[in-house]
């Protein structure tokens, strides 16, 4: 859990290339903000993985590694709320109707667990289509006072 005895307000924002290096970069940036805000190692692991999965979705499935397309990334801590936003320029997909990776027929699928892990590890997850193209996901985790 985060430590509210260390109130923090910090924000970072980047426009990133559609590469796997950007995935690492975004994860490092987000975990850095969360660490300085006082989240513990367990939460940092969850935040890092959730950001990684979001970035992979944006780079691989959204922008499809297109060098002409960018991923807008931001991570911020305000009060007890840690927020990450990842926006791609892809065609988008329906986050609300993804197959459940826990059902017996899907258990041995080799993909389709990313959004599930994000939802499992963060307190809130929202996705919206952008105009004219793209998807923005918002991940939230709350620090809890000790």
């Amino acid at each position, binding site marked *: 859990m985060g430590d509210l005895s260390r109130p923090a307000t910090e924000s970072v924002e980047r426009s990133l290339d559609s590469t*796997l290096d950007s*995935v690492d970069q975004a994860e490092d940036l987000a975990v850095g903000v969360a660490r300085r805000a006082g989240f513990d190692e367990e939460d940092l*692991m969850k935040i890092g*993985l959730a950001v*990684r*999965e979001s970035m*992979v979705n944006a780079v*691989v499935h959204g922008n499809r590694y297109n060098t002409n397309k960018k991923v807008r990334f931001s991570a911020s801590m305000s009060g007890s709320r840690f927020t990450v936003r990842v926006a791609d320029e892809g065609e988008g997909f329906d986050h609300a109707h993804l197959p459940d*990776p*826990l059902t017996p027929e899907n*258990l*041995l*699928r*080799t*993909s389709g*667990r*990313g959004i*599930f*892990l994000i939802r*499992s590890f963060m307190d809130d997850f929202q996705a919206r289509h952008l105009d004219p193209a793209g998807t923005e996901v918002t991940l939230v985790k709350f620090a809890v006072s000790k």
Partner: protein
Amino acid sequence: MSVNLGIRQVGDVTVVDVAGRITLGEGSSALREALRDMVGKNQKKILLNLGDVSYIDSSGIGELVSGFTTVTNAGGQLKLLNLTKRVKDLLQITKLYTVFDVHEDEAHAVRSFT
């Protein structure tokens, strides 16, 4: 650091010591290729030692599942050894922990192959 694979033979069991990160890209593709290569060489008793895996993402989990399916479909067995807390937690969350035969002792794991 990406993934490093050390491959050794213990009797008729192939032990793969996996170290580093199993994530989308080099890490997951290296593991996939190694497992397919083993099956191609008729090495069908495979024990993945994940004790030094520092990080795994959904792509890495997918590669474990893919490896399990590839080996099983070829009539072999793929088992896991020395899961870190991080990997164990992810396999439990995704309900895959009970799919794999997981061991904590190598000698015991080697003997469990039939």
